[in-house]
């Protein structure tokens, strides 16, 4: 018998159809019933219009989409042998705003998804309100808006740089929001200062705290999540940033990656119509996101946790929370190092001179985001978007399970629904 479960609050909706084997999940398929046709909309439009349209694919990671678009356009210029002069300052501003978007996403995920979902599996005391997540996220988006103008849906990047030309005033403003956010994170989530937390090398040290993070860690252990939710133990990271290293990993061995091996395949969903497609690398499924980034980046505490608990639901959750800490520190450094007198933007040749293909790859909050564009005299001939959820939450046959399908196998339906959310799912991005 097949049971249908509705999953909400993932920027839209998804459904999971479970085939049970007694009390445990034998097989599950996933369907995403929404579609807007963003790629089709982009066809025939001025290539610069992508900078306005793609951020609107998603209300929570629109900034990553903007960055992927601008990188795709820049790569098209480079393919036409036109130089793109991107100042270090412009790169730093782009990266800072991307970091802030990832941080607000993770923060909301902890307080609006993870804790309420844990609460469904076991009684939780002393656990805080969703307002906590909203407050921290608002600080991050204010720091972000200091450079990008607004959040969500900012469009302040252009090929060759960024439109903002911040003064010390903006930097100080952003710094003060960031410091407030770090203090909030230390007091409300960690229960210890950021620096000490970042020096932690094992989960025992997390356990020694008395705070939201230690309570989350304890709950995961008592639910046995360190022994459940395993996917393939294969990871991909494509985005080139100060906080990520493009590579592919099988267990602990890492290999180089090339975007030409990425392919797309229709989802398998016999029970219900779905608009989603699965993303593969060399015809295999890989997990992407914070755990993948921490593994390829050799973050000591996550490597240690992985040694014991592999790619369990536990590892996935702790990696996402830990990533907030390391990104906050990275963001502080970026603000400090930013040389404000550098050029913000150097315009390349006019867009109508551009006939080329381009690819833009970014580490979005939930993992690898790829935009591919083909441009003819400045007009978009073809546009393709591959989002993180397409990597993690694909739906295929029982013979070739996707990471989430594998992770949900062999546990109860309630546990499976929790494990589903440990990947941090975005419905609107998936189908776009």
């Amino acid at each position, binding site marked *: 018998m097949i049971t249908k479960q509705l*999953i909400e609050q993932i920027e839209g909706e998804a459904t999971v159809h479970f085939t049970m084997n007694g009390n445990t999940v034998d097989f599950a398929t996933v369907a995403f019933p*929404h579609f807007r046709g963003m790629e089709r909309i982009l066809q025939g439009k001025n290539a610069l219009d992508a900078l306005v349209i793609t951020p609107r694919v998603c*209300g929570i990671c629109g900034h990553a989409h903007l960055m992927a678009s601008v990188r795709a356009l820049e790569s098209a210029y480079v393919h036409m042998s036109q130089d793109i002069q991107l100042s270090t300052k412009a790169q730093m501003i782009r990266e800072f705003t991307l970091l802030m978007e990832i941080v607000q996403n993770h923060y909301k995920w902890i307080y*609006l998804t993870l804790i309420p979902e844990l609460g469904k599996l076991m009684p939780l005391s002393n656990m805080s309100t969703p307002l906590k997540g909203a407050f921290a996220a608002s600080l991050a988006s204010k720091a*972000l808006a200091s450079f990008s*103008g607004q959040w969500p849906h900012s469009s302040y990047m252009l090929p060759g740089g960024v439109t903002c030309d911040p003064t010390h005033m903006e930097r100080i403003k952003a710094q003060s929001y960031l410091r407030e956010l770090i203090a909030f994170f230390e007091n409300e989530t960690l229960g210890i200062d950021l620096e000490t937390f970042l020096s932690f090398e094992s989960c025992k040290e997390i356990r020694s705290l008395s705070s939201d993070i230690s309570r989350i860690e304890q709950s995961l252990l008592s639910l046995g999540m360190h022994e459940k939710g395993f996917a393939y133990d294969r990871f991909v990271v494509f985005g080139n940033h100060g906080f990520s290293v493009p590579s592919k990993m099988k267990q602990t061995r890492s290999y180089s990656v090339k975007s030409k091996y990425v392919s797309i395949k229709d989802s398998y969903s016999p029970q219900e119509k779905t608009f989603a497609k699965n993303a593969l690398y060399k015809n295999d499924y890989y997990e992407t996101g914070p755990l993948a980034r921490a593994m390829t980046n050799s973050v000591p505490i996550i490597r240690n946790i992985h040694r014991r608990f592999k790619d369990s639901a536990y590892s996935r959750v702790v990696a996402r929370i830990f990533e907030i800490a390391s990104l906050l520190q990275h963001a502080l450094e970026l603000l400090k190092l930013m040389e404000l007198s550098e050029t913000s933007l150097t315009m390349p040749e006019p867009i109508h001179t551009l006939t080329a293909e381009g690819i833009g790859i970014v580490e979005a909050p939930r993992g690898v985001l790829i935009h591919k564009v083909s441009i003819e005299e400045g007009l978009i001939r073809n546009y393709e978007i591959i989002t993180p959820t397409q990597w993690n939450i694909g739906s295929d046959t029982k013979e070739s399970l996707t990471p989430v399908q594998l992770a949900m196998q062999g546990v109860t339906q309630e546990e499976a629904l929790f494990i589903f959310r440990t990947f941090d799912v975005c419905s609107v991005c998936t189908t776009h």
Partner: protein
Amino acid sequence: MADRIEGVKKLFTSKSARVDTNRGDAHYERLFQICQTRIEALKTQTPQQNRLHIDDLLEDQGISRRDFMKWASAVTGMLMLPSSFTPLVADAALLMNRAPVIWIELSDCAGNTEAILRSDGPKIDEILLDIISLEFNETIMSASGHQAEKQLEDAMHTFKDKYLLFVEGAIPMGLDGQYGTIGAHAETFYDHLMRISKHAAAVVAVGSCATFGGVPAASPNPTQAVGVMDVLKGKPLINIPACPANPANMVGVIIHYILTGQIPELDSLLRPKFAFGYRIHDNCERRAHFDAGEFVEEWGDDGAKNNFCLYKVGCKGPMTFNNCSIIRYNEGVNWPIGVGRGCIGCSEPDFWDKYAYERPMADANIKAPTGGVEKTVDEFGLGLLTAAGIGIGIHAAASLAAGKKEESGEA
């Protein structure tokens, strides 16, 4: 439908779009009486399910009574009411949990929910929105699936003909509505909207998708997405466009409803005049540069470094009605023009197709709301756009002459 939208646009600058901020003492005295009676009546009612007290929450967030009253007087001003209404507005805010609001999400990116209910908190506007939404918002309430549907049914039944329905997202009409379904029974977005709006007191379309179809409706409109006003008939409807819409404007609408029991005065595109009665251009911080003929001629030039006017690199501020030049975004931290990228006109119909990003408005071949087609600035100077159009023509042309000289100098 296209004819209708074009027709509506012709009304864009008609008399109905004019803002009247002084209607005389007699009018305001009568209104005051009505509001007072209504507030007193509301005070005697108890909220159905919502047990949260706004005063407690404000205190929890460290917001003092003084801050709250300051906020109330700002909102009074925003709603274009005399300052004597401030205590009533404050009372209305405290009665926010008596305003039954149901919030549904259709074909969208969740951006408005993100902007409004989650990311801008918790200042007063956002706390208020959290309160009203806690029991009725599909996205953030804890119940899901059948339980959520039951809750929705209950809310619709209890507040029959009294609730405000907030709609986020467009309605995809293609493929018999199969591009977007919702809930355990896979109801299409269209059916969902029709069912829930049937007994709403009024419907509020939030964001550009719900108002005009938004980015999903961009050419060639693959899912045949339309806005609420294209399919919903016979219901009071308020449009709060922009991508994302601004929380302050939403709170304004709700408070106005609590205060008067009516929807606020609207323009010809059904937008509340208190928020959409002025152009971005009217209150833009870069307006002085426009008046002085100082423009950014190309991205990243000296003009850009000096925060000059962005009109010539495509800013749509002169023909976009919205209050973001005053209230800005992310709790007033910044706004697009503040980072030198110009307005994209996201609160106007068709911005996704017509108000293309970078192309100067003069080159975009935009059909102006008044019916005239713009000429290329380099060839003819600007045609009349709106009332501000005359000014634009003169200033852009003046700076153009200077630009031409430089160009020939380089060559």
